[in-house]
C-alpha cells in the first residue's frame, strides 16, 4: 500500500481478516552486562571469573550461577576453536537479508564455558569442529553482540 493512501488493508471478508500493525521501541539497558559491550569497542572480549568456584565463563555474567558470588571481569583469549556450528539459509525476519550466515560456539583454552558468535568466511564452506578461529571487532560500534565476530585463524 502506498504511504499517501490512508486505508485499511483487508485480506478477506468471510471471515473478515485485516492487517494490524503494532510496533514497539524498547529502551534497552545492558545494565550489569554493560562492561562487556563497552569493551568490544576497545577490541576486548570480556568473560567472567568466579574466585569461589575457580570457574571461568566464556560468556559474560556478573554473578556466578553455581555459588551466587559476584564474578570478576577477565579478558578472553582472542583465538579459540569451533565447538559446533550451523549455516543458516533462513532466519527470523530481521535477519533474512543476512542469509546465508554461520553461527558458531567458540571454545577457548583455559575457559570453562563457550561463546556464541558469527563466523565470517568465504561462502560459508570448509567449516569444521575443532577449526581455529580468531576474534575480529567491527570498527563502527553498534553496541550489540555483533560488534565481535570470528574468522578462520590465519
Amino acid at each position, binding site marked *: 500500500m502506498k504511504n499517501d493512501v490512508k486505508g485499511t488493508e483487508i485480506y*478477506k471478508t468471510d*471471515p473478515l*481478516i485485516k492487517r*494490524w500493525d*503494532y510496533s514497539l521501541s524498547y529502551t*534497552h539497558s*545492558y545494565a550489569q*552486562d554493560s562492561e562487556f*559491550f563497552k569493551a568490544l569497542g576497545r577490541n576486548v572480549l570480556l568473560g567472567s571469573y568466579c574466585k569461589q568456584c575457580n570457574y571461568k*565463563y*566464556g*560468556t*559474560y*555474567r556478573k554473578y556466578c*550461577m553455581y555459588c551466587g558470588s559476584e564474578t570478576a571481569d577477565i579478558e578472553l583469549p582472542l583465538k579459540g576453536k569451533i*565447538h*559446533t*556450528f*550451523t*549455516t*543458516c*539459509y*533462513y*532466519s*527470523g*525476519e*530481521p*535477519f*533474512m537479508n*543476512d542469509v546465508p*550466515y554461520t*553461527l*558458531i*560456539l567458540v571454545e577457548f583454552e583455559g575457559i*570453562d*564455558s*563457550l*561463546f*556464541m*558468535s*558469527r563466523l565470517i568466511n568465504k561462502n560459508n564452506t570448509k567449516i569444521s*569442529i575443532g577449526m581455529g578461529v580468531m576474534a575480529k571487532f567491527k570498527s563502527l560500534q553498534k553496541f*550489540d*553482540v*555483533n560488534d565481535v565476530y570470528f574468522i578462520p585463524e590465519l
Partner: protein
Amino acid sequence: MNDVYIVSAGMTKFRKHNYDEDFRLMVKRAFDYALNDADITHKDMDGSVSAYFSDHIQGQLIAGAMTNDYIGLATKPSKRIEGGGATGGLAFQAGYEEIASGNMETCAVYGFESMSHLNTWKGNDVIALGSDSNFDYPLGGFYTAYYALMATRHMHEFGTTPEQMAMVSVKNHGNAMHNPFAQSPMKITVDDVLKSPMVATPLTMLDISLMSDGAACVILASEERAKSLCKNPVKIRAIGSSSDTMRLSDRPFGKVPLLPNESKDDYKNLKYPGVHSFRAGRIAAKMAYERANINDPLKEIDFAELYDSYTSAEIQAYEDLGFCKYGEGGKFIEKGYSEINNKLPVNPEGGLIASGHAIGATGIMQAVYAFWQLQHSVKKHLKNGKLQVENAKRGVIHSHAGTGAYETVSILER
C-alpha cells in the same frame, strides 16, 4: 499427595491457519469435546489452568482469562502458565498440582496458540526472543539455528547422521497419515527429507516442526471424582521437571546423571551435557522415573509422546529419557524401535513435526493423545485404530522450552 487422574480430553484439528475460529472458540471446541466425551458439565469443574506461549503472537494479553469466560468458567479459580515450548507440559503439571494438593477436585487444563497471526519469518523472530536478547538473539535469532548447533555437536560426538534424523521425519509424517487431527500427514522418504530446502545445517525443512493454530484440553480429577465422572480414567502416576541455562554457551561439561540401568563406565569419556544433550530432560526423566519406580524405561514404558520440535531433538530425547544409552539414539530410530508396535513407539500420532505445534496447546495435545492411547480409545477418536499401541498400559509425555531451559516428563498409566 492425592492421586490424580485424567477423566476426559479433547482437541481441535491442528491447522496452518484457522481463520474461522479464534483462540477462544478453538479452546471451546476442545473443552466441549472433552465435556461431551465423558458426560461432564461446567458445574463439575472446580477451576482451570490455561496455557499459551506468546502474548506477541496472540496480540492479546490476559488471553487466558478471556478464554476462561468464553468457555463458561468465569468465577472459577484460574491461572495462566507460560514456559516457552514447555508451556503445555508445565500447565499439565500445574493442573496435577491443583488436584494433588487438594486445592481442587476437578481441573480443566487447556492450551492454545494462533501461530497464523504472524507470517513464518516474523514467527521465527518472535520465538527467538525466547533466547538471551543481549547475547544470542541479535546474532541472527533463530531457534532452528540453536537446535542445529546442538545437532551438529551430537553428530560429532556420537556419529549420528542426517539420514537417521530424516527417519524420524518419515516416521512421524507417516504416522500422521492415520490421524485426522494432524496438520501434515505425508508419505515421504529419507531422500525427500534430505533434499528438502536446507534451513540451518544439518536441518532441512522436513526436519522441523510446524507452526499451527490449535487447542487441546484435558480434564483432571481426584480419585473419588474420577470414579464418578469416568468409567476408565487414566492415572497420572508421576511428574518430573527440570530447568537449565537459557544460553547454550553456559552449559557445563560434567558428568551424566545416571539412570538405574546405566553405570559410570558407560560414559567414561563423555563431557556432559555440553551442547549435545538436554540435561534438563534427563533430570526431569530421572525424577519422574524414581517417583514411578521405573528402572528400565525401554521395557517398562509402552509408548512416548516426545518433544520433536526437530528430528534431532527426538533422537536426543531417546537418550535423555534413557530409552537407549547416550550415543545410541541414531541407531534407535534406524532399527525402527520407535515405530508403531515396535519396542517403544514414539509420537504414534505424528508429534510436533506432523500432528502440529500450536505452542501452548502442544504439551496438552500430547496428554490428549496419551490419554486416548491408555484408554484404548484411539479408534473411537481418530476414526481408525491403526495408531493404537497394542496393550498400552504406561505412556510418557515430554516437553521442552528453549534449548531445554525448562523440561517436563509426566508418566501416565492405565
